[in-house]
């Protein structure tokens, strides 16, 4: 099995589409890192400037003494409002600052990769590398060397997962390099936290993200093997992704459905407006997220069982 997985992974890492999509993701990741650091830094600076200016704003020569007195009376209230905005911007700044941290950049990138655009790329890779084998006919020589289709598909799913993990590492390294060499100087941001905290958050985030990527790879490969045609697989994957995202906000149930559990597992928040707004905020639940992931795992298991049974009733190629 190890050799099979290695062979599939090697093949996927050489796949022109896999390379192109990986390059696109790395560029997209750098662009998002740049935008989010720039925006967060600008917002924090601006809100601080507004706060600093607040008492002086009442000193306008056009203000009558009564207007000035009324203005000064409102300053504390306005300051409270601005401080709330400042807190939110600071929280966003802390998250954006992870992209300027050598370890935190891994957490920042895994959230991008497990968000909608990252999952779209993963579905595309699975569609063309799995379903494409059938549409090209190249599955024939492979099946003449491995008779167990389930084993072959499991290896392909592991290879797609490995591809996504390699992409995560490469992209995180590029993001960290950008953040350290340019971002820190150009866009001052609050500290992402003590090293221990960043390490712990990153470890948990990467574990959760890796689990989500594994699940997504299993579903995408199963779809590819079921439909055996890249475009159909891609469209079905997109439809499923929209369904997962939309149902994450279903009242009373969303947190238990794949989209809600996934969002809570990875800890989606304000990573960046460009990537994160695809994911609708989930219906809050007090149940542990590891428990809420079980229905998703059961659905993936059922999909693979169904695929296995269906494959027994039809020609393998």
């Amino acid at each position, binding site marked *: 099995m190890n*050799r099979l997985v290695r062979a599939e992974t090697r093949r996927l890492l*050489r796949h*022109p589409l896999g390379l192109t999509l990986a390059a696109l993701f790395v560029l997209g990741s750098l662009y998002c890192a740049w935008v989010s650091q720039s925006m967060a830094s600008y917002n924090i600076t601006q809100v601080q400037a507004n706060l600093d200016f607040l008492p002086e704003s009442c000193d306008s020569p056009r203000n009558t003494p009564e207007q000035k007195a009324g203005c000064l009376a409102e300053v504390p209230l306005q300051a409270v409002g601005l401080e709330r905005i400042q807190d939110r911007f600071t929280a966003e700044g802390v998250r954006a600052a992870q992209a300027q941290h050598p370890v935190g950049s891994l957490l920042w990138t895994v959230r991008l990769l497990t968000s909608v655009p990252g999952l779209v790329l993963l579905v595309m890779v699975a569609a063309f590398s799995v379903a494409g084998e059938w549409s090209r006919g190249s599955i024939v*020589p492979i*099946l003449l*060397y491995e*008779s167990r289709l389930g084993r072959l598909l499991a290896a392909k799913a592991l290879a797609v997962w490995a591809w996504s993990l390699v992409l995560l590492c490469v992209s995180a390294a590029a993001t960290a390099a950008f953040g350290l060499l340019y971002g820190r100087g150009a866009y001052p941001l609050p500290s992402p936290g003590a090293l221990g905290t960043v390490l712990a958050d990153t470890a948990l985030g990467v574990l959760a993200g890796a689990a989500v990527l594994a699940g997504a790879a299993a579903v995408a490969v199963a779809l590819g093997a079921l439909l055996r045609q890249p475009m159909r697989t891609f469209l079905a994957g997109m439809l499923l992704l929209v369904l997962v995202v939309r149902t994450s906000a279903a009242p009373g149930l969303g947190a238990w459905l794949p989209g809600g559990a996934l969002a809570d597992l990875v800890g989606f928040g304000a990573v960046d407006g460009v990537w994160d707004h695809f994911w609708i905020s989930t219906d809050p639940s007090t149940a542990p997220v590891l428990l809420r992931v079980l229905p998703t795992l059961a659905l993936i298991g059922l999909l693979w069982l169904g695929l296995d049974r269906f494959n027994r009733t039809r020609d393998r*190629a």
Partner: protein
Amino acid sequence: MIGREHHTHACSHELGANACPPKMSVLSCHEVTKGFRKHSVLEGVHLSLEAGEIVGLLGLNGAGKTTLMRVITGLSTPDSGEVRLFGEALPMRPRQLDRLGAALDAPAFHRWSTGRAMLRTLLDTAGLPDGGRIARTLERVGLTGAADRRLGTYSQGMRQRLAIASALLKQPDLLILDEPTNGLDPEGLRMVRRIVAEEAARGAAVLVSSHQLDEIQRICHRVIMLAQGRVVAAGTLDALGYDPESGPAAFEDWFFGLVGNGARP
């Protein structure tokens, strides 16, 4: 004769016939039937192959040759009937597949891969070690010089050679070649003839389909003729009433006499 094989294996072919290998059933098909939707492609096909023999599968387009080979290699599941490989009934098990080599359909590989990398991928897929066999196989099919070129740059003939290499890589006990001479130049035709003879001499059973009637006539111990999904004749050319001295044109007439001129209804 109709629908049944005539087992008169004579070991009288011109290549690799120095010694008749011991008879051992490598492949047997019993009442194999296969259809696609309501269209029947194979109907009650019987055949068997023994170690060391070369059997030619003949028939017009749509006769069911490729489908039969796909059923034998486990790519297609028969609707009814039984296929036994190396004494065990299908579905295919890894120990059966390890002894089977096949080149089917139009050869399709990963265009971005090289010939050598493609063969290594296949070996890795089966978990088999290389041990120099990739280099040896590439040499046998005349692709050593092009081994590190991307497959997207291969000609049809080169892809065909690579398909044959992929079938030989496992040193199989049963070699199945579906129209292996398609797209090959005269040197390639000679190579196929040599490889088939060598494999049979090594003790492998070879099932080969081709529209090159003279090739079949030259290399095969026996022929099986399919028409409209049925075996219409099987046996040595001698037993089927063909005179080897009568030339290619006579062979063609003899072939059409057995399978008929009509296409599948």
